[in-house]
């Protein structure tokens, strides 16, 4: 092992020279590691927070939920026997400043609670009085946003339905907000007793009832599973939905997981970009060290001693880079903590988590190893003779087999660990495959552009045009930086282009999904006896262009053609469905199979079903669907299929019965009103003035909410892109800096033989354009492929190539690189050649 000791001594001596020339190496590694560590820390903080706070977020150990109805007495008695039970109603309504058409109104998400609420956690309100006191009698607590919107303060009156309430406090923190998902309006908290008789919770109205259970403190997760199974058997077919403390905030969890996994992908891509910089830096360093290596060989050092000596040096440097990255990766989330915590509806404490740091360090070390091995292994091919001649030609060819094997193992370990550690194995595998494919294509493109340049240099076109020939020579000739530049620029631009494609597609999706003529309002909970007055008001208005309306009631699918609902895995067969009935074919409906029942049909119940869902469930004409409609079993035969477009913003039901079958069941009416924007305010005042229980949802507000959620995703995308861009830029500056020595030397020689600065700069520009074109073409193709992959496989959204974004990013990136390169060359170009050439002696 003396050779190892010798290697260590050599490494120590060489490291005395300091870190000069390694800043790019350090920056590339540190940035990549920092990005991954930061994303990982935030993700772990959130998931740990969700786990730890699951009980608080849910507001209990378990929750059973029904749509459109209260649990029956028997059901409530059963649930109360399982533990401490609290009953909560959750629904949308209009909060009003008064009665009649003069009042101001705003949509609110009402939570009506019993005395036991909240079972866990505490509601924070201002002024700091007890919750019992605030909700006593006609007391109501409102979110400050709602109070602002209506211009109300504590002590003022607030109307919900026909009930006048008094604002006793403003809501500061709602412990179970994260579990409720994203509501359409600000929160109002009121006691159920105060709402009795307000006409808001009539049978068939749109509301949810939640039964929260507090179990004995020693209830294990296994016991929870057992209980869940029991409850599901007991309440089968009633439409009850179960949730427990382990998945308290599924929406938030899904959201965080999506963004988190996407950012890990971007981080890995960033590390790959950084890896190209690492590789270029190592190669440049080793090239500078060629005389040293040759001398060491001349005096008797073996190949493995030299390999080990330089591996140790780079190992020490990689350690420093990784450490810097980890420090940054810890500091960035802590610095951004107030901002991130404010964005999340669940309590999260951003902190230092060892696991993501270990993960990031591992990725960093593997990346450094992978991108170092190749150039390092080639030092074995440095012949001592290169000392005695111009050593500008680097070592060529493939490293020896054992190094290739080591390289393959390192790559496999990196891919394997990212697949395993990220918790999103498929995605990590796709990403690794994508990055490897991109690298391979880029190496091919670099090779192609070099061969092409060599060919072009021999043609008539290049002769007599020294600027062009110089550029072609620099790209195609020996010892050029072509491969490094194409790789780093190409990979950086590919990631950017991909992010651009994803971003542009998400924005386009928002636009595409917005119906061209969206209704102004959804009116829901219109009672049958209110329908006529309502229609009189809206249909007679010249500003209203269209009014659609349909009856609506909740039903639970029990079985389809004899197969119990639970055996299907489809949203239609899970929980309550909103269903409708009609006598004549609703206007604008297209029948795609079977026949609509005759007018006035009064026979056995018939069903018209949406074609798409029927196909998914395998329903055929003549099949029998049994439904539980508010406690009554209704069996209908499917006699027709319809085309239903849920994205048009209009009314669409999967299941429509013939009118006679359901006319007697309690139901409410739903209506969409298409009106001119100026008339919207007056329509709302008139309708709600007549019938305060009717809830109006402004479609524009709902769309804004969706847009907001997507913007958060887009913002995360931009942050990821920014980090990658930064790494890519550092790599490119590194490449430009590494190439500078050579370029300045060439410029000096060319000046000596009569070239002006203009000619020389033109040549540099042509060179950048050649390399930029090769990288850009690959980036556009790669970005499109990656964008397609992420959208269709991860986001399950359609993908369309967005040429403007792709071209803008690629051209912008190439141009920025060109300018950076020219800026590097400018100053030395002005110097007298002798100074530079002397330094080369």
């Amino acid at each position, binding site marked *: 092992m003396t050779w190892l000791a010798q290697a260590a001594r050599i490494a120590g001596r060489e490291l005395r020279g300091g870190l000069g020339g390694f800043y790019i190496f350090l920056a590339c590694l540190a940035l990549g590691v920092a990005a991954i560590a930061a994303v990982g820390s935030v993700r772990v903080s959130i998931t740990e927070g969700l786990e730890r706070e699951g009980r608080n977020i849910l507001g209990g150990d378990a929750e059973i939920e029904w749509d459109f109805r209260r649990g029956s007495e028997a059901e409530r008695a059963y649930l109360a026997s399982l533990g401490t039970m609290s009953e909560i109603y959750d629904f949308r309504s209009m909060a009003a400043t008064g009665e009649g058409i003069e009042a101001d109104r705003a949509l609110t998400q009402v939570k009506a609670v019993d005395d036991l609420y909240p079972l866990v956690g505490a509601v924070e309100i201002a002024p700091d009085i007890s919750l019992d006191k605030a909700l006593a009698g006609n007391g109501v607590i409102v979110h400050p946003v709602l109070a602002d919107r209506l211009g109300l303060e504590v002590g003022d009156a607030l109307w919900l339905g026909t009930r006048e309430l008094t604002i006793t406090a403003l809501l500061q923190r709602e412990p179970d907000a994260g579990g409720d998902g994203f509501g359409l309006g600000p929160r109002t908290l009121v006691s159920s007793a105060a709402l009795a008789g307000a006409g808001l919770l009539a049978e068939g109205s749109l509301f949810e009832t939640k039964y929260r259970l507090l179990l004995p403190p020693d209830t294990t997760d296994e016991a929870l599973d057992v209980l869940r199974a029991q409850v599901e058997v007991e309440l089968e077919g009633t439409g009850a939905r179960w949730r427990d403390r382990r998945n308290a905030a599924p929406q938030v969890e899904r959201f965080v997981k999506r963004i988190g996994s996407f950012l890990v992908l971007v981080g890995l891509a960033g590390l790959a970009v950084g890896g190209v910089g690492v590789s270029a830096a190592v190669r440049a360093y080793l090239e500078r060290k060629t005389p040293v290596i040759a001398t060491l060989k001349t005096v008797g050092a073996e190949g493995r001693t030299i390999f080990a000596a330089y591996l140790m040096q780079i190992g020490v440097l990689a350690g420093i880079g990784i450490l810097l990255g980890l420090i940054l990766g810890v500091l960035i989330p802590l610095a951004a903590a107030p901002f991130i915590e404010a964005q999340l509806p669940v309590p999260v404490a951003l902190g230092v988590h060892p696991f993501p740091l270990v993960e990031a360090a591992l990725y960093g070390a593997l990346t450094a190893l992978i991108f170092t091995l190749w150039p390092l292994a080639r030092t074995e091919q440095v012949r001592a003779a290169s000392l005695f001649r111009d050593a500008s030609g680097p070592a060529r060819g493939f490293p020896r087999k054992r190094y290739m094997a080591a390289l393959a193992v390192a790559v496999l370990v990196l891919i394997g660990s990212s697949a395993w550690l990220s918790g999103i194995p498929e995605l990590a595998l796709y990403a690794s495959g994508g990055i490897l494919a991109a690298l391979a294509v880029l190496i091919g493109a670099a090779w192609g552009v070099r061969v092409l340049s060599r060919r072009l240099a021999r043609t008539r076109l290049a002769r007599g045009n*020294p600027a062009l*020939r110089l550029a072609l*020579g*620099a790209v195609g000739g*020996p010892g050029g930086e072509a491969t490094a530049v194409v790789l780093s620029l190409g990979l950086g631009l590919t990631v950017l282009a991909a992010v651009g494609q994803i971003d542009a597609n998400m924005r386009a999706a928002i636009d595409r999904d917005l119906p061209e003529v969206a209704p102004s309002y959804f009116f829901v909970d219109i009672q049958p006896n209110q329908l006529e007055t309502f229609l009189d008001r809206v249909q007679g208005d010249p500003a209203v262009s269209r009014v659609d309306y349909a009856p609506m009631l909740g039903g639970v699918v029990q079985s389809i053609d004899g197969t119990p609902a639970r055996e299907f895995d489809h949203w239609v067969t899970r929980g309550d469905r909103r269903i409708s009935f009609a006598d004549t074919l609703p206007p604008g409906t297209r029948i795609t199979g079977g026949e609509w029942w005759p007018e006035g049909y009064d026979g056995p119940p018939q069903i018209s079903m949406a074609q798409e869902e029927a196909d998914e469930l395998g329903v055929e004409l003549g099949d029998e669907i049994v439904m539980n409609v508010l406690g009554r079993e209704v069996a209908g035969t499917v006699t027709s299929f319809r085309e239903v477009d849920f994205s048009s913003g209009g009314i669409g039901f999967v299941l429509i019965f013939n009118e006679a079958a359901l006319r007697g069941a309690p139901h409410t009416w739903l209506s969409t009103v298409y009106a001119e924007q100026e008339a919207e305010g007056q329509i709302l005042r008139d309708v709600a003035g007549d019938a305060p229980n009717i809830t109006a949802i402004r479609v524009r507000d709902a769309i804004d909410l969706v847009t907001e959620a997507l913007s958060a995703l887009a913002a995360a995308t931009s942050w990821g892109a920014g980090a990658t861009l930064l790494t890519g830029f550092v790599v490119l500056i590194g490449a430009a800096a590494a190439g500078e020595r050579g370029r300045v030397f*060439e410029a000096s020689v*060319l000046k000596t033989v009569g070239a002006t600065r203009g000619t020389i700069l033109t040549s540099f520009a042509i060179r950048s354009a050649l390399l930029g074109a090769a990288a850009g073409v690959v980036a556009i193709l790669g970005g499109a492929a990656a964008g397609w992959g992420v959208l269709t496989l991860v986001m399950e959204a359609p993908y369309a190539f967005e040429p403007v974004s792709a071209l803008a990013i690629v051209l912008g990136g190439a141009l920025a690189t060109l300018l950076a390169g020219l800026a590097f060359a400018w100053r030395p170009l002005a110097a007298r050649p*002798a*100074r530079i050439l002397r330094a080369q*002696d």
Partner: protein
Amino acid sequence: MVLSLRDVSLSLQGNAGVVDILHDISLEVAAKETVGLVGPSGSGKSSLLMLMGGLERATSGAVEALGHDLTAMDEDALARFRRGHMGVVFQSFHLIPTMTALENVATPLELAGVADAFDRAAAELDAVGLGHRTGHYPAQMSGGEQQRVALARAAAPRPDILLADEPTGNLDQATGAAIMDLLFGLRDRHGATLVLVTHSQELADRCDRTIRLVDGRLDRETRRTAEAAE
């Protein structure tokens, strides 16, 4: 006068402060004259040659070539002036590593707008005995071969002034003699003025005049006498 230097001094900023390299040098070179620069290592020969070629800026004094004041020209003007007027062979050749021998030689011809640049470059390489190595890159050639390519590159545009730093330094006796013949042929056939830095007594003896530098100062000037010429 083809070249004229008046009271030229050169100081450079070194690591350990300012280094005075050349002191108050005045000399003139006439058309078709051949001047040899000799002196011990480090005496400033290469630096003086750089000043004559406008590749280095004098700290003080005036440098004129073919009636143009080199100290007053900017980099582009100097570059254009060198086209066709001046060829330089560096002590360490300075070939462009990404270009083949042929391309290296053709480049100044192209820059000067010569139509058949590549044919002439090939002929020039032939003349220095490298007709068979036109497609090789500098890294694939020996030091002497690289030196000959550098000479071909300097001589190809038929410059009025050829500045050469130890043009025979790396060559064996026979090749060195051939290169010398080539250099003097340039003067005889095309009327070029030659300034050569050399350690070779043989080469110095063939020059019209030898100038000896010691510690950056003109030490001694030897003119070849008429009888020595015979």
